[in-house]
């Protein structure tokens, strides 16, 4: 049996709030296979976003072991972790998180500046990623000149530009209308099916979760149940 893409073993994460210790992840054990599309659900405060941040190396666990894309994250220093993130993980956030002073193309090109690619290769990769998300012709638009759905698609293009193994999406449809949300979910499903990206998507939306192949439920910082969607919901009909 092959190694899981993501393996969390007895992971704890605690925060100090007003002199009180808040345990957000409470000895979580979880394994996720390569090339699957996971939806991570649970009530507010169940530790979904915290887990996503730990898997993406944006934060560090207090205890336990977290192995992602073959790297034990606890072994990596700050600079190595940043380089590991650049090579292995792409993030898609609820609020898009694009750099407002850069154009769509430059935003997508941003993670590629950390690679040894030449300027032309970087440009070509970024253009290809934008084409893949259906934003050909919008290269020179600034984020404020794009709709929410388009911004999120630029964010997805940025996330996949450096061809990472894992895509982490935190409520990627939370700020979008139904139509744009459906487009973004189509795109994520396509990246999983065609490009075999391992995707972990935090969501509250059952319709969004229905697009994943597996739904992981968290409860009070521990793994609840895992549901398998026999046949992920078909892309929504375009109006």
């Amino acid at each position, binding site marked *: 049996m092959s190694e899981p893409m993501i393996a969390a073993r007895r992971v704890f994460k605690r925060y100090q709030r007003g002199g009180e210790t808040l345990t957000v992840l409470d000895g979580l054990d979880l394994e996720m296979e390569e090339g699957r599309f996971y939806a991570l659900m649970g009530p507010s405060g169940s530790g979904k976003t915290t887990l996503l*941040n730990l898997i993406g190396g944006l*934060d560090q666990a207090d205890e336990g072991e977290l192995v992602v894309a073959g790297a034990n994250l606890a072994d990596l220093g*700050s600079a190595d972790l940043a380089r590991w993130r650049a090579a292995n993980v792409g993030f898609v956030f609820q609020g898009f*998180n694009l*750099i*407002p002073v850069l154009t769509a193309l430059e935003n997508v090109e941003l993670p590629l500046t950390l690679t040894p690619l030449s300027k032309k290769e970087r440009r070509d990769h970024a253009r290809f990623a934008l084409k893949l998300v259906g934003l050909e012709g919008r290269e020179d638009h600034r984020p404020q000149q794009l709709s929410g759905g388009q911004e999120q698609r630029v964010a997805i293009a940025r996330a996949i530009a450096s061809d990472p193994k894992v895509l982490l999406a935190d409520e990627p449809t939370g700020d979008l209308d139904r139509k744009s949300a459906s487009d973004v979910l189509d795109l994520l499903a396509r990246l999983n099916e065609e490009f075999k990206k391992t995707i972990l998507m935090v969501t509250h939306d059952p319709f969004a979760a229905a697009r994943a192949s597996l739904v992981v439920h968290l409860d009070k910082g521990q793994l609840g149940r895992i549901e398998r969607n026999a046949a992920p919901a078909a892309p929504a009909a375009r109006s």
Partner: protein
Amino acid sequence: MVSFKLVRRYLGKHKVRSILTIGSLVVALFLLCMLRSLVVALDAGVRGAKRDRLVVQSAVSLFVDLPQSYQSKIAAVEGIETICKWQWFGGRHPTEEAFFAQFAVDMSELPKLYPEIAIVEGSFADVAAERRGCVVGRTLAKTFNWQLGQTVPLLGTIFPGPPGDGWQFTIKAIYEPTSSAVDGNTLFFHWDYFEETVESTMGMTPGTGTYFLRTAPDADQVAIAGAVEQLFDNGPQRVTCSTEAEFQAQFVSMVGNVPFFVAAIGGGVLIAIVLACINTMLMAFREQLHDAGILKAVGFTDGSVAGLMLAESLLLCGLGGFGGIALAKLSEPGLRAALGSMFPGYEVTGETLLLASALTLAVGLVAGVVPALRARALRVVEALRSVE
């Protein structure tokens, strides 16, 4: 490169703030360059002074004249090659308001004493041939649009001129100084004309303010100065013999501790601008907090995010600082013309440019270091939670 583009775009995002900060840096660095150049100008005589020139003056004060009889006694001291009487005239042009220095000198000795006085029009021989002949600096001639052969009238404020036409000098030579030891705004004229006129109008033989000496190249300056002073230990007028540099330094100290005041003003300007730049960069940091989190999330290291912040500070300060330095250099000819009579050696030297450049970089580093360190220490999760 996207990173540099990012730095430029952040500066362009708040155009008014960036322009105001850059503008204040331009003014500050221009002022610093100008103030330092004024000090350099004041000090030019000291810097250009030659080791083989000595100056003899009254031990009481520079304003007490020495008898002419001292000349032959001093000249007899071993090691002295040239001696030249040097008397401050203090005349004023009847129509021109700008003041300039005039000296009565032993004209035949002047070129031996000051080879740095390079004649560019006319000749010393022409001056020698004309009793009222004078030699003027090119800067002075340009200021008043004087030509060779032109007569220059002067009103004597210390020494009244001859009845009728008053003091009249004919320009027989124009010089260009080849060293900062010589001021290009000076008029030199014949001692003989001066003495004869003073005798006839005031009924007295004039003394000389100073004697300028030039010694043999291998002479012992200290021993010569000691020997000259010893000659007149018993009067009638005791003298002080100093090097040309010490003599010139007297004039700088006469106007007070100018370097200190200039340094104090310059320091104040510098502190104010550093504080303004730190404030600007801290504001920039707060605005870019969220973006710093994004950069770190996509794989930029702590160091590279800090580097971007530092680069932004250096670019901001560099644009302003080097703008001010360029302005100081470009305005040099105009300021030299405007300040010529007060600060004859005004020049924005290479040393001033280097110092100002180093200060510019230092301001950029100081202003950027705190935001850079904060950006470095920033936790991604907290940064992403922040709202611009």
